[in-house]
């Protein structure tokens, strides 16, 4: 029984990670076509960096990820704090609504955003599809993730600590700055890293909210794959995987801190 369970575990792990391992391996393979190993090389990475547009796509991706993460982290943290501190009508409804962007299919979200932006554009002339609309799109789902992570951190926070700060003469801002924020900071940073990695590799919502000239790396990978998978794409994917993994590991380490 134990052995069977072990075998099962290995099979699941293989199923999950083998495809990723293959991509990483192929990004170092000398052979341009096919999946036969013919020797180790860095050349696809070198070529990738000489690709004429890749720097622009990477820049777009980073701008979107950094800006949307900053916005979402502030908003998500405030949302979590509001839910922690205050009692108000519709609080339970709001608690439930946080989960909507998390569970709703990305494609629905993407289409909804596209329609919404079109509607705003028709009435005001604003929100032409661009990096700005991608950022807004990313923020909509990132806020939920940040709020959930920060909320879990706040759940372990003794409300008496904020009262103690007030008791010792700290006003609202000082209490937040010197007591609340330092205590929830690991949660805030973990939420930010999660939001960052989600933005970095988002395809579906970006696809619907991107305009001309706002191609990001995932969009580029998708469009290139249509013309055949090249080792450069493997290299690019490997880099994305590495950055995302590092982000997740950092976030996890932060959440473990007491």
């Amino acid at each position, binding site marked *: 029984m134990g052995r069977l369970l072990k075998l099962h575990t290995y099979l699941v792990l293989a199923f999950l990670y083998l495809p990723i391992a293959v991509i990483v391996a192929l990004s170092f393979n000398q052979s341009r076509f096919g999946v036969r190993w013919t020797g180790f090389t860095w050349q696809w990475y070198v070529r990738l960096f000489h690709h004429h547009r890749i720097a622009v796509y990477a820049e777009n991706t980073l701008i979107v990820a950094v800006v949307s993460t900053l916005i979402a982290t502030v908003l998500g943290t405030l949302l979590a704090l509001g839910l922690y501190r205050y009692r108000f009508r519709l609080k339970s409804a709001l608690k439930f609504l946080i989960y909507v962007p998390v569970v709703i299919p990305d494609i629905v979200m993407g289409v909804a955003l596209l329609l919404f932006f079109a509607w705003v554009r028709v009435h005001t002339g604003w929100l032409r599809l661009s990096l700005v609309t991608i950022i807004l799109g990313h923020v909509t789902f990132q806020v939920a993730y940040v709020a959930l992570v920060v909320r879990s951190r706040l759940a372990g926070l003794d409300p008496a*600590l904020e009262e103690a700060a007030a008791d010792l003469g700290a006003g609202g801002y000082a209490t937040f700055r010197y007591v609340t924020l330092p205590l929830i900071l690991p949660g805030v940073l973990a939420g930010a890293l999660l939001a960052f990695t989600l933005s970095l590799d988002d395809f579906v919502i970006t696809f619907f909210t991107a305009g001309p000239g706002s191609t990001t790396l995932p969009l580029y990978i998708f469009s290139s794959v249509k013309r055949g998978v090249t080792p450069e794409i493997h290299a690019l994917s490997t880099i994305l995987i590495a950055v995302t993994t590092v982000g997740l590991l950092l976030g996890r380490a932060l959440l473990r801190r007491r």
Partner: protein
Amino acid sequence: MLKPPKRPENRTAVVELEGVRKVFDGETVALDGVSLTVYEGEFFSLLGPSGCGKTTLLRILGGFEVPDAGHVRIAGQDMKNVPPFRRPVNTVFQNYALFPHMTVFDNIAFGLRMRRLPAETVRKKVAWAIELVQIQGLERRRPHELSGGQKQRVALARALVNEPKVLLLDEPLGALDLKLRKQLQIELMRLQMELKITFVYVTHDQEEALVMSDRIAVMRSGRLEQVGLPEELYERPKTAFVARFLGRSNLIEARATAPDRVETPHGPLRVRGGLVPGRRYLLSIRPEKVRLARTPWNRPNAVIARVHDIVYTGAENQYILEAPGGELVAYTLNADISEPGYEEYDYGEKVYVYLPPENLVVIDEPIGNEPGTATL
């Protein structure tokens, strides 16, 4: 005696409560019109069972709850709309509420830094507070590296370093073991006498309140039952609740037949006097004030009873007695056997129980069906 009893006359009021009322969620009445004055330099305890409103009262003083009605004045200043961070009080919280991300030093310095005192002053004052509560050498530790007793001392230092007009303490010793609690009780009393700061101390432990306080307010269901010196509350409880909550009491229903005579389930008894004939009263007598004898004594208020149970507690023997009007409890000191008049009684033995009139406290309150009361 560690401290002389203090009478509050001719002293300055520091905390004044007037008709304070607090209702939670529109239905739970936590405080039902509490009026109370605490004087400068007093060690004042709020005593009562959980849910009696004592913590709510303390939180109203700290500014963490806003009363629905009534007035709160601290040091002569009305506290309406005064937030916690502008009040001349500091709190020692139930579970200490030390800032986990700060060292002991930074925890204690927090209040001083909020007042933007110069770094040199902060250092001096923190050093003073650290010496005061005797935690030298722990300055650089974090709260999770401290024992319960040490945390308690840090919490105390963090509050006292700000030299508040009133120190509010919310069951500060509740989480500690008995031995440490006794030790810290004495230290708290020493600190309070040394610093002459007014303490408002919340506890559900009647012994703690009796030992430490100058005055005690016994609370029940959001109301004050009785406020007074510890010995007043113990010797002359005004209500059956106080008689039972502070120590143990024999409660006997009575109807006055003359100003100094009552009819009770145990038979006619004599009391100190001043009663209205025909009116119903409740008599209370402490178990240690009940006298036992093997042979009849020429004294009033004798009841013949039988020993039903004996509880040996070391310092005393507690006799549970079966009397005609119900159960009576008597404690006798476990004294030297050679002492004249020292007696021990056996299970089932017939004893003469004396309820000395001067020890029978007459409680004049409407009689409900108090559990454990001998009824007429």
